[in-house]
């Protein structure tokens, strides 16, 4: 079974801090994704990557950056955390091809105080 592991289930940080969310997948998938999930808004794509060192902006990239130095790891970085970035963050991976499903981690619930 594919396993996508997010480093933290719950995280509390302060405004202005630089925050790192880590995601690792064990199935050699080419594609990796970061979403945030908020009540009433569903899932919104922040960034995705289709190869090592490659990244593409999603629908809401402002205030975030990403890093993919190794194929199995995709990091989301909040450069200077703000309270409106309090959310559930979900990482996903998929094989190449539009008909390949995504596999999700259990999410990180991030609170910015």
């Amino acid at each position: 079974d594919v396993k996508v592991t997010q480093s933290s289930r719950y995280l509390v940080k302060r405004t202005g801090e630089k925050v790192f969310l880590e995601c690792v997948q064990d199935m050699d998938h080419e594609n990796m994704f970061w979403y945030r999930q908020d009540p009433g808004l569903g899932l919104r794509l922040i960034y995705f990557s289709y190869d090592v060192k490659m990244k593409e902006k999603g629908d809401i990239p402002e205030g975030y950056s990403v890093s993919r130095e190794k194929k199995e790891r995709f990091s989301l970085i909040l450069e200077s955390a703000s309270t409106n970035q309090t959310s559930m963050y979900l990482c996903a991976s998929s094989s190449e091809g539009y008909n390949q499903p995504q596999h999700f981690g259990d999410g990180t619930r991030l609170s910015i105080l």
Partner: protein
Amino acid sequence: AQSVTQLDSHVSVSEGTPVLLRCNYSSSYSPSLFWYVQHPNKGLQLLLKYTSAATLVKGINGFEAEFKKSETSFHLTKPSAHMSDAAEYFCVVSENTGNQFYFGTGTSLTVIP
């Protein structure tokens, strides 16, 4: 342009009765369609996928969905609801033009004992 509409934000059924969660999509190309389930504080789990093979797709936990191109629909059904089916359900579409997935806003299923 791609879009996904989940027609009901909340559905309540009694245990043992049928479940119907509705999804309509718009797509310029031949889409792949997916249903995911999300239990509280967990990531999304794939229930089933349609990728241009049989139009009636069977998934895990007794769920199935039928792709109807003429109606641009991909409704999720289950003959008999179980308490453990209470969760959030997401309909997702992707196209053969890239690596992006488009999510519906979700349907919350409540199962009444």
